[in-house]
């Protein structure tokens, strides 16, 4: 009788366990940390802390948010692990520390050497799987255009003082609009050392976003020349291009 009972208990237990292993994928976890900086200094959101841009204007940052999407991990041999697109939309808000830490789960165990991701939302490929489930997050962060159904990819706001001039506000909002203006960009960063992901190893990759590049990247943007960029087919694409060069991998902790 006791033998029988033990057997029943054993069977029940194994049944329960079998479900656990059903839910858990065998992959590993990768932590991505986004660190916004000006040069090597972390960004401080404050109208008291000023920085200087390439046009010799001093500026402060009061708001900094951007959308990261479509994360792809690239193995040494070039093979890609595409993180499920429906889970692959993230709002990085400098004000919210949690938003700067992305945890990617169920990743193919392997050694990776590059990370590819999107800046913004690839609206040219609508309908995108799962993108609509990002609406509440974008909405909460005020990253939807009020008059259109599209996303604001980057919000960069603050004050600036031109050389010998008065202090003023600046506002840079970049996104895609309808089918006419596509500012979505794909960015690939090289990992400084290879990242091994397995069930046991959950490495952290720190990505540095050098925010100074928004104004001074491939293109130089003077805030005095244009302090407000919103639906701007001339300047918004230049800012988007600058964004593509602002990311680099600062550190890998295996």
């Amino acid at each position, binding site marked *: 009788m006791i033998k029988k009972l033990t057997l029943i208990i054993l069977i029940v237990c194994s049944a329960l366990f079998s479900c656990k292993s059903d839910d858990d994928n065998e992959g590993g976890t990768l932590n991505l940390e986004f660190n916004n900086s000006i040069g090597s200094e972390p960004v401080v959101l404050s109208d008291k802390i000023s920085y200087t841009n390439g046009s010799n204007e001093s500026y402060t940052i009061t708001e900094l948010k951007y959308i990261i999407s479509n994360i792809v991990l690239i193995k040494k041999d070039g093979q890609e692990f595409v993180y499920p697109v429906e889970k692959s939309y993230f709002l990085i808000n400098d004000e919210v520390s949690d938003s700067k830490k992305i945890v990617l789960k169920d990743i193919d165990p392997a050694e990776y050497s590059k990370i590819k991701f999107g800046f913004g939302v690839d*609206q040219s490929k609508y309908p995108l799987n799962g993108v609509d489930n990002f609406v509440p997050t974008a909405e*909460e962060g005020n990253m939807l255009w009020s008059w259109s159904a599209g996303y604001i990819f980057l919000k960069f706001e603050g004050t600036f003082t031109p050389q010998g001039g008065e202090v003023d506000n600046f506002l840079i909002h970049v996104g895609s609009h309808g089918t006419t203006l596509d500012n979505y960009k794909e960015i690939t960063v090289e990992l400084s050392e290879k990242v091994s992901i397995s069930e046991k190893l959950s490495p952290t990759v720190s990505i540095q976003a050098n925010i100074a590049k928004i104004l001074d990247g491939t293109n130089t943007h003077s805030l005095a020349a244009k302090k407000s960029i919103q639906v701007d087919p001339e300047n918004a694409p230049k800012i988007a291009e600058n964004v593509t060069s602002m990311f680099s991998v600062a550190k890998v902790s295996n």
Partner: protein
Amino acid sequence: MKFLVYIGIILFGVACNSSSDNDEYTPIPENKKLEFKIPSNFPDPTYDISLNPPTEKGFELGKKLFYDGRLSSDGVVSCGFCHLQDFAFTHHTHIVSHGVDGALGTRNALPLHNLAFMEEFTWDGAVSHLDQQPIVPITAEVEMNETFASILKKLENEPEYVKLFAEAFTDQKINTENMLKAISQFVVMMISADSKYDKIERNEGSVFTEEEQAGFDLFQSKCASCHKGTLFTDQSYRNNGLPIDPEYNDIGRKRVSGLEEDIYKFKVPTLRNVRLTFPYMHDGRFFTLRQVLDHYSDGMVDHETLDPMFRDTENNVEGIPMTDIEKEQIIAFLETLTDDDYINDNRFSEF
């Protein structure tokens, strides 16, 4: 011993079947696909039906959402509030649409029909996919003024919605994607293709009266280059010479493209059911078709972006010259575009 093995097998099966997120397992009743029928005189749809095929339950859910005031902040303004079926889903007699707490919009509600065949949406093309369209009126302060997070919370508290979402979608989830897909399933089924004109175009036995025929011929030569084909729009954006209303100073397509060359351009609207969709133009400034035609013959004002087809060979504003009789004939033809079957189709009715 054999008995125990059986128990074991049953336990395995049960335990693994119920491993979904929900506390309870919801059985999914059969959810039949609806037939999406393209009228023989229509072009191919722009909406990819295969990615979101309308089903009985999805359609029912979409319809419920369309007519539900919960989608707005005051609980009153539903989609159907500004899109009334009797008037081809426009906001009858309202110059501009009304939103929550009596707020006024700046534009006239467009009719809803044949949306599966349209490339872009709203008067300026701010929306490039039908699934995304409801985001604009739902979040606009002067329209429904609501957030998706709040709507989803409201829906989760309604057992009827919990059931419908579960029946309509295989993942059974109440989320933004399923909500927007359901609304699309409802509106893509809204096809208006049974007007007198359609029956003539498809050789189904109807014939134009003499006046309608004369109007049709005039329409072909004077209007059809923009109000093109069986959808009666080439889906382009054009400045048709409306005097600027300083109250709104609506810049039109420029708001989307940011381009100076697009200022004051608006979508060429479809003319199907046009007799019912008054008032006319993006700001609802004209109440009758006669006023619209009078504008085209005599009311245009010049502007850099005025469509070149409204100019004469010397670059002066010419408009579309029409006599009184010609206008009457054109209006007689336009009335053949009214589709009473569509206006009375119970599938789309609130009650």
